């Protein structure tokens, strides 16, 4: 099977831009901007948001699984899992995307993007959950043991509900981080918003409008979410 992907040499070379053409055209062209907007918004909704939402769901669930496994697995296995998670966390998502893209040739690049983002961020979120689990007071564990609760029930009914509470803001921050990392998908040619922006701009070298719009969309989506998470964090801190 053959893969077609973008490489450094195939991306527009800024020094090859026809500078006379640039000089004669206006710096900002409203008509061009309005024409580009629908395609970019479509890519935003169909790819960027989908990757962020599904990736966050995978990361949130898998992160919790990793955090619990680190506590319940026998020591050697937990050690292996810990370093596997560290390895994923400390290597670039760009290289991971490329690695999975060329290793699992039968998968389509959108699926790869979602899974790689989900697994990469799961290793971050597992740290958040780990801290949350550690913050559950020892007395809770002792009380559960005194009541001779089975371990699964202790986790499900006692520890995890208490551990999750304080983790919500951090998980939200990682969701925003993931959102802002989605343009990395350009390396496996997924048509997310910034890639589409480049494709729209390339034929006429008009990049000003498309990249400014892309930046504004990122700001418009991530800033209010960050403010909301900040407020939630403060409210949770008061409630404690």
């Amino acid at each position, binding site marked *: 099977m053959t893969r077609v992907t973008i490489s*450094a040499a195939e991306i*527009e070379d800024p020094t090859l831009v026809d500078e006379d053409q640039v000089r004669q055209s206006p710096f900002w062209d409203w008509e061009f901007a309005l024409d580009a907007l629908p395609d970019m918004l479509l890519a935003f909704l169909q790819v960027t948001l989908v990757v962020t939402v599904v990736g966050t769901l995978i990361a949130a669930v898998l992160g919790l699984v990793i955090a619990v496994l680190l506590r319940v697995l026998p020591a050697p296995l937990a050690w292996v899992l810990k370093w596997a998670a560290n390895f994923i966390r400390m290597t670039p998502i760009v290289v991971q995307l490329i690695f999975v893209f060329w290793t699992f040739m039968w998968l389509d690049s959108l699926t790869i993007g979602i899974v790689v983002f989900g697994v990469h961020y799961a290793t971050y979120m597992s740290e958040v959950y780990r801290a949350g689990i550690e913050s559950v007071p020892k007395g809770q564990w002792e009380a559960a043991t005194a009541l001779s609760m089975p371990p699964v029930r202790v986790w499900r009914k006692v520890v995890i509900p208490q551990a999750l509470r304080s983790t919500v803001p951090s998980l939200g921050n990682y969701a925003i981080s993931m959102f802002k990392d989605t343009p990395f998908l350009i390396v496996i040619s997924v048509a997310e918003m910034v890639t589409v922006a480049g494709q729209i701009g390339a034929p006429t070298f008009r990049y000003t409008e498309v990249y400014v719009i892309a*930046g504004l969309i990122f700001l418009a989506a991530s800033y209010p979410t960050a403010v909301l998470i900040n407020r939630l964090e403060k409210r949770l801190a008061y409630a404690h």
Partner: protein
Amino acid sequence: MDFFEDWSDYFEVVINWSDRLLDGLLTTIQLTLYGGALAFVIAIVLGLMAGSPSLWLRVPARIIIEFFRGISLVVLLFLLLYVLPQIWMRNPGLPFEGLVRNTFLVGVLALGINYGAYGAEAVRASLTTVAKGQWEATTALSMSWPHKMRRVIFPQAWALMIPSLSNLWVHLLKGSAIAYIIPFVSDFTAELNNLRRPTDIWFSHAFIGLIVYFLLALSITLLMQLLETRAKRRLGRGAPVRQSTSADQPSSTATTSGGSR
């Protein structure tokens, strides 16, 4: 090429290309060092501004920080790469044209600005974490601002901010892999991709790449841990004191903790 049949050919190719791979590695290290240095300067300046009581300093700092944190690294990179040079194209004769057209510098700039904005938040947060009594004492002694920063507040904040800065530096190293898409910059990831063509078995190269990045990230965390130990020792605090003061937090020295960006 089948790896298990032709492994000797395979290693021959890797060895033949090792010069290029090392060049790419050097570029990645340079991006990480220069980008990290720029990010550090930006983080300190913006962090001090955002933590100052003056509205005239705080508001602009907040706007700059939120802007560059909210805009994605890739978008920032493309704006610097494709939109910024237009100003020079339209106004021939402006100074610094060579700098704007140097794509390596543009990469350093994008990494430095983006992670510097994240770092500013860490600097500001650690300034506010320094015990209030310390601030009050400097006021009581009527110390000048540079004096109290240099002698009292900053050394304490410095010990607090190192773990976050360490995480951010690792993030910057990982983010530098996107230099792969910058024209004329052949970083380690770009050279690995070039290696895919002569050998046809990409997965093993990408795996070499992952291991190399992992080792680089480990060296950064170890280096920063040394710095943290030193900073604490200079404050006359051993590790046990700090652990007892922050018992409810996960150990800040955990080598690989993600931290918040």
